[in-house]
């Protein structure tokens, strides 16, 4: 299967699959990037703040890449929460030095999935509440 065909299928997938998938991928990517940037000997609080900052910068990049295909608000709201929380946690975990990078990325992905699920149910409740 060609790359363009794969991209076409991904873009036209059902949003019920796309939303958690983008949440998982965004969380994992942000966590991985932070784990690669923050050195292991940093102070935990500094690492947390810088991690959060890196998360916010990556949020804008991911937003620009994803929003045209999957909707601005439906991407922006989960991504804002994922970027800040995953960035800060990954920063702290990286500064500890004892947590493997892979483990940090998987945790980022799990947080991404949890945030996507929370927003899905919150949306269902708010849309029904009228």
């Amino acid at each position, binding site marked *: 299967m060609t790359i363009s065909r794969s991209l076409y299928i991904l873009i036209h997938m059902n949003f019920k699959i796309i939303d958690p998938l983008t949440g998982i991928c965004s969380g994992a990517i942000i966590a991985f990037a932070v784990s690669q940037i923050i050195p292991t000997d940093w102070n935990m609080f500094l690492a947390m703040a810088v991690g959060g900052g890196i998360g916010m910068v990556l949020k804008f990049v991911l937003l620009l890449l994803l929003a*045209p295909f999957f*909707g601005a608000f439906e*991407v922006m709201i989960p991504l804002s*929460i994922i970027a800040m929380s995953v960035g800060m946690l990954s920063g702290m975990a990286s500064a500890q030095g004892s947590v493997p990078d892979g483990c940090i990325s998987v945790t980022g992905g799990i947080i991404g999935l949890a945030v996507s699920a929370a*927003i899905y149910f*919150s*949306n269902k409740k708010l*849309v029904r*509440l*009228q």
Partner: protein
Amino acid sequence: MDQRNKYDQVAKVFDFFRKGDMRRWGRVQKDHFKQMHGKILHIGVGTGMEIINFPPGLDITGIDLSAKMLERALWRAKQYQGKIRFCLMNAETLAFPDDTFDTVATVCVFCTVAHPVAGLKECKRVLKPGGKLLLFEHVMSKNLIYGLSLKFMSLFTNALEGTHLDRDTVENVRKAGFKVQSEKNVYLDIVKAIEGVK
């Protein structure tokens, strides 16, 4: 740079960036705009992406601030099975007499209009008594977490393209003198389909 120039500049890429929104909201917009009747004023036509969600056979006057956007909307207007004419106009100073239209419709416009209440008062002026205001807009969330995200992002969107993500458009509709008949959440409590009556 003023709003008109900003929209002239983004006209080329506007459709690309709104494609996802249209996929998400197309069905809901179709349902919301089913209520359109009589003479229609569509404020903020943009590149005409929403025209496909309007019922056929209507008499629509579409306005926009940007000539480049309207140029791109022309082919969509040609495909519409009804009457559409476009005017280059600011939503805050509508060049129509009082009580002209039966319905005024907008999609994501009052986040961008510089003085939203003034713009909505203009909508009220050009609407006939009992006329409908059909808005499909994003507004500030009442949820603290979503609200903070919107406030933060609004700093950037406002600087880049003059879009405010933190406006209480439902309250603005009331301030302009409309009776809000319904406000339906489309996505969280951020994207709403609002129905007002003069």
